């Protein structure tokens, strides 16, 4: 009896609880565990993640793409660094051989330095989104090469380091990530006197419908750079993210409606339809987290 009583008063052993910050770091905060392994084995191919793809050659990053960012063609042609016809010709002439970059330089359409600078800008921009925390694990296809061909390969560690630095930079400017993906509204307060010419161009496009990604594309600026401007403007109180519409209360929620309300707002076209089902997304996140242990 006494033993039973002492047993009852003794608190049950503490359940093992993971440190949430550390778990997030292990699971997906540390950019991508898979990417590190691919770099070690000097892999060649493409890593496809939820919000973008990274192309590797011999374990180094040669290119990155994301539907959230303006592509290299947009960045090059928007300000006349290269004309659109020149880009099309190069893709037609050298795309098959995966040497578009080299062709552009050798045919004198663009200087090697200018191409490198624009390409590096586009690569790190897309990589920031491709490596953003995702609800689904990435998958790697060995052997795939990008048609652009190598311009200036970058070590995986440098891309990971820069991506984390960029996350920290945005967080320092304004810790709320809501303006990154939601439609943006002018908050109605008079523009702060510190708004720069670059930011005025962003403000001119804020209309309650466009997201930061839409504005980046319209201005043909890197999407991350637009996020920096958007977060600075949000911090200054000049713009605010539009609140998501309240869920409909009339009919019992159909599965599609529930997935819309539970998923974070994302620019159209960034989520493949297969990831829209919340149950599958949850299972994939679980698998991702377990794999990362």
């Amino acid at each position: 009896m006494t033993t039973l009583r002492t047993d009852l008063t003794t608190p049950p052993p503490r359940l093992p609880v993971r440190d949430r910050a550390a778990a997030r770091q292990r699971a997906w905060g540390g950019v991508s565990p898979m990417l590190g392994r691919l770099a070690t084995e000097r892999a060649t191919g493409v890593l496809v993640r939820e919000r973008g793809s990274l192309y590797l050659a011999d374990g180094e990053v040669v290119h990155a793409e994301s539907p959230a960012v303006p592509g290299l063609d947009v960045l090059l042609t928007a300000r006349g660094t290269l004309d659109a016809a020149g880009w099309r010709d190069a893709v037609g002439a050298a795309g098959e051989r995966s040497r578009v970059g080299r062709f552009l330089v050798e045919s004198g359409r663009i200087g090697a330095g200018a191409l490198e600078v624009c390409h590096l800008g586009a690569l790190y921009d897309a990589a920031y989104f491709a490596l953003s925390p995702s609800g689904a694990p990435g998958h790697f296809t060995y052997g795939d090469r990008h048609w652009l061909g190598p311009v200036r390969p970058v070590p995986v560690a440098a891309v990971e380091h820069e991506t984390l630095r960029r996350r920290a930079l945005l967080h320092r400017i304004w810790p709320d990530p809501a303006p990154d993906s939601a439609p943006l509204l002018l908050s109605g307060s008079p523009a702060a006197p510190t708004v720069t010419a670059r930011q005025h161009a962003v403000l001119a496009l804020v209309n309650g419908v466009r997201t930061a990604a839409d504005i980046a594309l319209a201005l043909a600026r890197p999407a991350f750079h637009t996020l920096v401007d958007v977060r600075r403007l949000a911090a200054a109180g000049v713009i605010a993210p539009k609140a998501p519409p309240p869920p409909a209360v009339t009919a019992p929620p159909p599965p599609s409606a529930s997935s819309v309300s539970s998923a974070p707002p994302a620019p159209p076209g960034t989520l493949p339809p297969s990831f829209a089902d919340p149950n599958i997304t949850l299972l994939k996140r679980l698998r991702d987290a377990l794999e990362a242990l």
Partner: protein
Amino acid sequence: MATTETALKEALTSIEGATGVALVDYTSGMALGTMGGSKTFDLNIAAAGNTDVVRAKMRTMEHLGLKGEIEDILITLSSQYHLIRMMKGRGGNGLFLYLVLDINRSNLAMARHQLKRIESEIEV
């Protein structure tokens, strides 16, 4: 028409007294290329930090309603010159060249002139 690497290497070897040079994107604070520096002088950290210098100056100019553009910014330490040269170019992405000079071995006027030439070689 040089690659960024050869242009930066040229800056380091041809500019008298140069100990480090970086090509920096000032919105993100990322160094697109660095050359030189040392264990005690991390050019990547210098690049990120100096974007704040550039931004502060630009903001001040906006406040004052000055329409001109920054050509370069000189910071003089007791033993070093730090020279920031804004790149004009069509890219419009906001790049600058960052050059570290040893004050005792350098000719500032010549260094500014040479940096201008190196900018035109990268010509974004």
